[in-house]
């Protein structure tokens, strides 16, 4: 529940100044560049026209891009459901050692840089990859049996790798909250186990499943690195198309801009469509009891061993690619078999210029860290000021403006900044700054989403007390609000850092000689099939990202445990489900979409509070306000 609007006690000027800062930043770094994209896509000789858009749409290749984008997203969503639903079931139903760990691991793919996954797929599923070599050795085959790579299925499987755990997490948390009494009632009324499942449990889970499908579909529509690295020339998505037109293939900025507008429209249209289908479901649930678990290993039910038929292939899909990356980073391929080596790590620690990654490997590592740090710092400042503005001024329009970058895919942000850095004022900045700005725009909405629920839960009397004790609004923020939001801010920062480290889409648009980050360097290494160097850098990248993600998780739970029922907070903000929070944070921020998110949030209710307290569309009624003030 969103708090009622705060009184604008700071005099108007201070509030306006506060709103001006993010507006100015977004104006220069986002809206103006985006305007350039619009003009390029919709203007011919200074005249507004749909010509370019129509020309693009009538190009069979572009139509192919759109069709393929939708096709692979749909398949990816279905496969993610197929892989993820059993896992969600498994996690809900059974007790076994390592259950908590397994659950925690479902978060891992989310912070894993996608280029490392692509690399892992090449190494693991290639015709001469680990899996095929293993199977050929085991069964004495002459031909590699697994032919996934270089097909559409490589893209789909990699997307499922990412999103099945998300689905599992959604299903698991919805199922745990489904009241077991309902199933027991059905059984008592004579329904068999299967019937009870089909008529009671499944309908209860349906909204969650639909929400998860919608989310995965949108994520896969906007996916870039995986189709770029795994799709080859034949399986390109619209996002990849924007990149190809802007940077590689025919160097046509107008066509890139037209495609960018298409991808924008596509993602929004699809989201609305899903909303229309998925938003109508809304089943209230939430019993007092949670579903009971049963031990996985039991002498009476040897049939449960059948789970291995699912678990083993799943483990191969999830662990194989990552294992392959780590293993190959320590192996030197030699004719008689591979030998352990640190050669690749020495190579990526080299400060010498490498023409194939247009940078030195060490500089790429350094740039990644600096860009991550810079983007994190800027995103925190921007995220905090946007949160502050949106708390003071409750306006849909302002919120839409201030959160607009959320609705724009990374490749479009990249294109916009690529164009913006041609002219002043941004052209005065170095190439790294383009990436820093792009990453800031990509990550700050998540910072806002992480901080606002916390901030809304903070007892407003605390900063007020500071004010009456003589603190200016800013001093009150600095000495009271900020320290209390502290670990939330830290967590948001760590997450922003992890996101920036792994981000490759905008970097692909903006990198250049000497301006190179780790994921893009991995992509270049992959392109020149320097697997050892790619693996070593990917391992470093994964380790750094994991560290940041771990810090994110720690900061969140530390905060919870340190303050118990947190002092200073009127209620427990729901920070215990970071995956869902982050996952739904990917959804574009439109009024209608907000409704969908609310459906998602309803499903995710855990502590009796919605995840997105900030997006609750019902304004606090005057009566509420009255009660609060006098309560």
């Amino acid at each position: 529940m969103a708090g009622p609007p705060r009184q604008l006690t700071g005099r108007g000027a201070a509030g306006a100044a506060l709103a001006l800062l993010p507006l100015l930043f977004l104006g220069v770094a986002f809206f103006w560049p985006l305007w350039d994209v619009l003009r390029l896509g919709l203007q011919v000789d200074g005249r507004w026209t749909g010509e370019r858009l129509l020309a693009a749409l009538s190009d069979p290749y572009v139509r192919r891009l759109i069709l393929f984008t939708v096709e692979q997203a749909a398949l990816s969503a279905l496969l993610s459901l197929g892989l993820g639903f059993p896992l969600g079931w498994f996690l809900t139903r059974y007790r076994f050692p390592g259950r908590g760990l397994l659950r925690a691991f479902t978060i891992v793919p989310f912070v894993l840089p996608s280029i490392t996954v692509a690399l892992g797929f090449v190494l693991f599923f290639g015709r001469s990859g680990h899996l095929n070599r293993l199977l050929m050795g085991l069964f004495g085959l002459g031909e590699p049996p697994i032919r996934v790579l270089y097909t559409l299925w490589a893209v789909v499987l990699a997307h499922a790798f990412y999103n099945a755990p998300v689905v599992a997490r959604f299903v698991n948390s919805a199922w745990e909250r489904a009241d077991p009494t309902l199933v027991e009632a059905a059984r008592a009324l004579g329904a068999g186990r299967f019937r009870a499942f089909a008529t009671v449990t499944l309908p209860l889970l349906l909204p969650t499943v639909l929400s998860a499908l919608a989310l995965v579909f949108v994520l896969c529509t906007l996916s870039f690195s995986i189709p770029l690295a795994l799709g080859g020339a034949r399986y390109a998505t619209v996002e990849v198309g924007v990149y190809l037109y802007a940077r590689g293939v025919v160097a046509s900025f107008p066509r890139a801009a037209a495609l960018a507008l298409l991808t924008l429209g596509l993602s929004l249209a699809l989201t609305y469509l899903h909303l229309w289908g998925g938003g109508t479901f809304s089943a209230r649930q939430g019993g007092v009891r949670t579903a009971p678990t049963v031990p996985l290993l039991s002498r009476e039910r040897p049939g449960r061993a059948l789970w291995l038929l699912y678990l083993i292939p799943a483990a191969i899909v999830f662990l194989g690619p990552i294992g392959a990356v780590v293993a190959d980073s320590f192996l030197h391929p030699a004719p008689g078999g591979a030998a352990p080596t640190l050669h690749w790590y020495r190579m990526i620690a080299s400060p010498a210029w490498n023409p194939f990654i247009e940078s030195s490997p060490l500089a790429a590592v350094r740039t990644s860290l600096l860009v991550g740090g810079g983007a994190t710092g800027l995103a925190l400042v921007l995220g905090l000021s946007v949160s502050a503005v949106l708390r003071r001024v409750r306006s849909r329009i302002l919120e839409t403006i201030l959160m607009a970058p959320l609705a724009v895919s990374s490749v479009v942000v990249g294109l916009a900044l690529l164009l913006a850095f041609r002219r002043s004022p941004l052209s005065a900045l170095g190439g790294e700054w383009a990436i820093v700005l792009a990453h800031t725009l990509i990550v700050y909405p998540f910072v806002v989403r992480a901080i606002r629920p916390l901030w809304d839960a903070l007892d407003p009397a605390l900063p007020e007390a500071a004010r009456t004790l003589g603190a200016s609004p800013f001093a009150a923020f600095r000495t009271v609000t900020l320290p209390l939001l502290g670990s939330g801010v830290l967590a948001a920062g760590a997450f922003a850092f992890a996101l920036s480290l792994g981000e490759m889409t905008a970097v692909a648009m903006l990198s250049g000689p000497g301006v190179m980050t780790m994921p893009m360097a991995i992509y270049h290494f992959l392109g020149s099939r320097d697997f050892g160097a790619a693996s070593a850098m990917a391992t470093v990248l994964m380790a750094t990202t994991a560290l940041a993600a771990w810090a994110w998780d720690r900061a969140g739970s530390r905060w919870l445990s340190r303050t118990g029922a947190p002092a200073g907070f009127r209620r427990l903000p729901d920070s215990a489900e970071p995956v869902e929070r982050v996952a739904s944070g990917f959804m574009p921020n439109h009024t209608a979409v907000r409704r969908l998110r609310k459906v998602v949030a309803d499903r995710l209710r855990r502590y009796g509070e919605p995840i997105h307290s900030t997006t609750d569309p019902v304004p606090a009624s005057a009566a509420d306000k009255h009660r609060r003030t006098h309560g």
Partner: protein
Amino acid sequence: MKRFIGLVAALTLTTSAVAAEQFVVYASRSFVRWGPASAIERAFEAAHPGVDLVWVAPAGAAEMLSRLIAELSTGRTDADLFLGVTAGSLPRALAEGVFRPFDPDLIPNLAFVPDDLRVDPSGHVLPFDHGYIAFVASPALAEDLLPRSFADLLRPELRGKIILQDPRTSETGLAFLLWTIAHFGEDWSEFWRALLPNLLTITRGWTEAFAMFEAGEAPLVLSYSTDAAYAYITAGEAKYRVLTLDGEAYRLVEGLGIVRTTRRPDLAHAFIDIVLSPEIQALIPTSQWMFPVHSEVELPPDFARLAVVPEHPVFLGPGEVAELLDDWISRWQALLGS
């Protein structure tokens, strides 16, 4: 706050990675990986102390050229010289005004380049090597499956066994597209449609295609007619078979040009003269695995013996490609979905 300023300062510092004292060459990945790039760099930097020669080669030549065109249109490029342009992409490069004309008087070694290799009469691009595009088979491909004609490439037994390159991003890929156009005329797209099922993948550049071929991902790759010589000279066995199709192979002349916006045309001319020098040209056959353009450089005997020269070299000149290329590329793109 102080830390933030420090960070800003650090970021600003790294942006000067490409500084004034550097001479930047955009090249194809294959040239820097295989060719005499380091020898050129040594010779160049010895002749011009204080200048750092920087190779930028993260992609295939055609992709690098497109990138250069994109960068020039945004007014921001670091490139002083481009290496790897072929007859296929030359018309586009000239139309986009990528290159400035060179001054033959500043390139003494130009005198040793035969006239028939000078593919650009407009005086912007100079050749530095030449060769032939052909299919190369690994021993994994059974003798009776070796394709000898375009029709053989369509045999169902070859399903998923061929690696091609993308004509939009790779000069070899473009060469193959032009080859099929030269061979089939208007029917080229029919051939391509029939060929698609036999492709394992279409890579963005030749380097990854050849690396995949060498790793055993597929037994047949579009590559150079010198690969048998390469295999024999480096590994001691002629394990790769070079296959002309219907006696044809596509002729490829690789050229280089001075980027319009360079501030150091003097260094650019000096660079070209070094590339055309007999010392560097002598390295071309056994590093770049192409034929040198210097008329007085002798070929190594093994190279001369094993490098395949086709009965019927196929070649579309820049004049024949010119305005049709865009249309061909978009038709080719449209085929991908079929």
